[in-house]
Structure formats: structure tokens, C-alpha cells
């Protein structure tokens, strides 16, 4: 697979705690997109497409409000929750590689203060679809669903609570270097983690992503167009999106339960790119909750589940000394929960040499992985590199 498309711009709105944004979600989306386009050295008139996942900010409305160019392409992925972030990037890559549009914005805006809180449920008296089998028992939220997956994963492989803690500690550690991060200036200790209240066992409060308001965007264009813009282009080396047969069956009847829905994604990503886990110096792993990150690390091939307790120990997930720094902006837990799209921007920054926890020095890394939200099917991931 030849990466024909490149990422040339990144931008975000300020990130806020839920309810803290002075702007509406739509305004936040417009801010992020404007910033990404400016970062690329392009103008809004150069943008001819919009791609997202699970987003309610319609490109018809966006293009009118932003004064972008004629709309040539718009798309969203199906399902997956935050697992659609990488898939959205692959959609933009596909559109550009096929020639349907030259420059496309991929974005996600999410204001949980203005709209529905992901950690809340209620109001309804009847449950539909797969929810009919779970909601009557108070099985309502992503935390509870991912807790059910994580309990079994921990049981099968002897995963300790301290191993879950390592994921949260890595995100909070990295957030202390990133002034954009909501948790900048708010460190987390191992004691804080263990003493925090339970949400749904085995998840403490700090195993769970916060509910935030914000938006993040990237600009994707052709390699040719990307050659002489404001920033060095970042190649989409490979992307993958999907799931193995029956691994998305609801109500915990997935064939391979528990899974982060990454086995097929990993197989495709490494095959398409010609690279493997040992080539990856830094990775962003969408953390809705800590447990699924551990499953995703294993399914992407970085270690076997039985090796996890040792793999994450001694700060191995933390910059600058860890062997596999993850979520180097602070990620969903520390920087802000924009449904995982901030992780994609951070993967771009690691290639550019712009991260506040930069791996490999100012020149940036040659390969940078972003693995989208585990826990919901289908999965996706993108591998970025020098353009």
C-alpha cells in the first residue's frame, strides 16, 4: 500500500471540562477546522471535503458557515464510537487517493456540556435493540460495558490493578508537559489512583476518561499538494478498519469476547505497511478506560497478555525513558476527551517533532501509531510517517 495522501494541518479548539466551553459544539468545530487549515498554510476555499465519525456537525452546515470550497466529498464511518477515529482518516485517504477531492478535513467535535453526557443514561422507560438485553439490568454506560470486558481479561491473564493504573499514570504524566491539556498542572499519583472511588469495578474514577468539550481537526491532501505547504507533510503510511467475523455481536456474545476489536486491524495494518510493533517508537492508544488499552496493546502485537504486568511496569509507557511511550499529549484522560481525535493530532505531532513529550528529538519520529477506541466494534488504527 502506497500512502498517497498526507496530513498537512492540525488544529483544535481549546479543550474544556464538560460545560466549561463558552462556545457551542458547532462553533468549536469551526474553530478547530480553521486552526487546522491555517496550520497547513491553506485557505478554507481549498477545503472540498469533510469526514468524521459519530459527529452531528453536518458538512452542509459547516461548509456554509466556514466559507469552504465547493463540497466534493463527505462521509462518516458506521458504529464503533471512538473506534472510528482511525477509520475516518482512512476515508479521507481513500477519497484523496481516488481523486474525489484534493483536500479534506477530518474532524470531531464533542461538547458533552451542551449535549448528552456519555457517562449518563436515563429518561427512557423502554430499551430497544441490543440494549433491551442489557439496560433493564442497569448496564447502561461505556464504563460498565468496558468493565465487563476488563474483568474477564484480568481474570484470564492475571492482570493486576496496578497494571491498569499504569495507563492512567502515563496519560497524567504526559499531560503535565502539555499546556493544552485539561489536566496540565494536576498530576496523578499511584496513591491517588488507588484511593479514588469505584465507578464500575475494576474501574476507579481515574480509569475512566472525563467528559469534555472541544474539537480537533486535521487537513488531509494529496502528496503532490502537500509538498510545498507550511509544514512538512506527514504520510498516512497505512490504515485499517474492521472486525473479525461475529466480533461485533452485541450483548457480550462476540466470538472472541473480551476483545479490543484490534486483531484484524493489526493484521491488516502490519501487512499493508510492511512494519510491525518492534518498529514503533511511540503510540497513541485511545483510552476511554484503562483496561481496553491493555487489550489493544496486546492485540496490536506489542506483547502477549501474560506479559502485560511486566511490560507496563517501571514506567515503560512513559516518556522520556519508557520503551513504548503512549498518549504523549496526555491523551483522552489527561489532555481532553474529544472522542479520541486528539490522539490522531498527537500522532501527527510526533512525526513533525512538535510534541511536548517528543520521542526521538526535534526531527520527530519516522513512524507514529494511533490506535482508536477499543471496546466498541469495528476497530481502526492508522500508521503515520514522514511524508
Amino acid at each position, binding site marked *: 500500500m502506497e500512502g498517497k495522501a498526507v496530513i498537512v494541518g492540525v488544529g483544535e479548539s481549546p479543550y474544556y471540562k464538560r460545560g466549561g466551553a463558552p462556545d457551542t459544539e458547532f462553533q468549536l468545530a469551526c474553530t478547530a477546522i480553521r486552526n487546522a487549515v491555517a496550520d497547513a498554510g491553506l485557505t478554507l476555499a481549498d477545503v472540498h471535503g469533510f469526514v468524521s465519525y459519530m459527529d452531528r456537525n453536518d458538512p452542509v452546515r459547516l461548509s456554509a458557515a466556514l466559507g469552504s470550497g465547493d463540497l466534493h466529498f463527505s462521509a462518516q464511518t458506521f458504529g464503533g464510537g471512538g473506534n472510528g477515529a482511525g477509520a475516518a482518516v482512512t476515508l479521507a485517504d481513500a477519497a484523496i487517493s481516488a481523486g474525489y477531492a484534493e483536500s479534506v478535513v477530518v474532524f470531531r467535535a464533542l461538547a458533552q456540556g451542551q449535549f448528552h453526557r456519555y457517562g449518563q443514561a436515563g429518561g427512557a*422507560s423502554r*430499551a430497544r435493540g441490543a440494549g*433491551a*438485553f442489557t439496560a*433493564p439490568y442497569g448496564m447502561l454506560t461505556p464504563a460498565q460495558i468496558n468493565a465487563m470486558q476488563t474483568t474477564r481479561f484480568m481474570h484470564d491473564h492475571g492482570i493486576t490493578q496496578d497494571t491498569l493504573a499504569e495507563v492512567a499514570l502515563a496519560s497524567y504524566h504526559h499531560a503535565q508537559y502539555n499546556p493544552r491539556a485539561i489536566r496540565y498542572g494536576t498530576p496523578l499519583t499511584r496513591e491517588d489512583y488507588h484511593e479514588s472511588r469505584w465507578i464500575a469495578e475494576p474501574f476507579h474514577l481515574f480509569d475512566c476518561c472525563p467528559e469534555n468539550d472541544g474539537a480537533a481537526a486535521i487537513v488531509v491532501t494529496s502528496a503532490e499538494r502537500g509538498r510545498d505547504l507550511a509544514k512538512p507533510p506527514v504520510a498516512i503510511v497505512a490504515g485499517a478498519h474492521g472486525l473479525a467475523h461475529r466480533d461485533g455481536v452485541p*450483548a457480550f*456474545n462476540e466470538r472472541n469476547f473480551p476483545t479490543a476489536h484490534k486483531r484484524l486491524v493489526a493484521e491488516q495494518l502490519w501487512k499493508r505497511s510492511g512494519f510491525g510493533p518492534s518498529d514503533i517508537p511511540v503510540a497513541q492508544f485511545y483510552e476511554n478506560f484503562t483496561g481496553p488499552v491493555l487489550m489493544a496493546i496486546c492485540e496490536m502485537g506489542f506483547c502477549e497478555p501474560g506479559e502485560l504486568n511486566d511490560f507496563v511496569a517501571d514506567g515503560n509507557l512513559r516518556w522520556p525513558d519508557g520503551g513504548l511511550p503512549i498518549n504523549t499529549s496526555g491523551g483522552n484522560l489527561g489532555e481532553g476527551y474529544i472522542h479520541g481525535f486528539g490522539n490522531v493530532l498527537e500522532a501527527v505531532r510526533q512525526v513533525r517533532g512538535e510534541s511536548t513529550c517528543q520521542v526521538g528529538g526535534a526531527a520527530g519520529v519516522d513512524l507514529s501509531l494511533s490506535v482508536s477506541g477499543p471496546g466498541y466494534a469495528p476497530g481502526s488504527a492508522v500508521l503515520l510517517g514522514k511524508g
Partner: protein
Amino acid sequence: MEYQVLPELTPYNRTWFTSGTLAVQHCPDCDVLQHPPEELCHQCGRTSLDTRELAPTGTVYSHTVVHYPADPRLTASVPYTVVLVALDDVPQVRVIGDLLGDPHDVAVGMPVVAEWSEHEVDGEVIRLPHWRKV
């Protein structure tokens, strides 16, 4: 736990939610069981499916003790425990339900048995399975 959310009935889930048995969807042609019920057989596409009643016993495959009430109507119910039960007859079929009794007395592999509660709605009785340690 006490909760007022009930399943919306469809032609495909009605037997499961009204029979007071573990009536798992079954394809008469393929003789396969599938759960949760779908609008057609995943193997052959047949749309007229029946059910097979499985024994109301199983073991806890996974669980979570819920402490945070995501719905204000659950405030008085926390902590409550939700279990994922692998049925003894067909362990590939896993059923979600709340655990009756001590919410903290739960472990993977624990044997459980189903009990049903009855809820009259719109002239019809919905019967929901719950689980209790054997």
C-alpha cells in the same frame, strides 16, 4: 436493584422476554442457536426462526460491581452487580443479568441459577431473568 427500564418487545425477542424461560433463538434449518436474537439466521438467512429452551443454569463468565448510578433512578440501588452468564447447556450463549443477593459475593466461574421477575405493561407480562448464586 430496582429499575424501571423494560425491553421493547419485537417479534424476535418476544419469546425470550415473555416466556419465563431461557428461550434462545434457533434456526430450524441450520439447527444453530444465536443470541441475542436477530431478524434472520446468521448462517443461512432464514427469517422464520423458533426458539429452544435451555436450562436456567450457568456460570459467571464476567461481572462488574456498579457503584456510580448513571441513571438517577438507580441512586438507591448502588452498588449492584451485573453478571455475564455462560449457560451450562451452551456456554457460547452468554446472558446478561443482575445478581440477586450480596453484590460483592461474585467471582468468575461461580454457578448461578435464573429467577424471573414479572412486569405488566400494555396488557402484556414481561418476564426478566435475574441470577442468583447457587
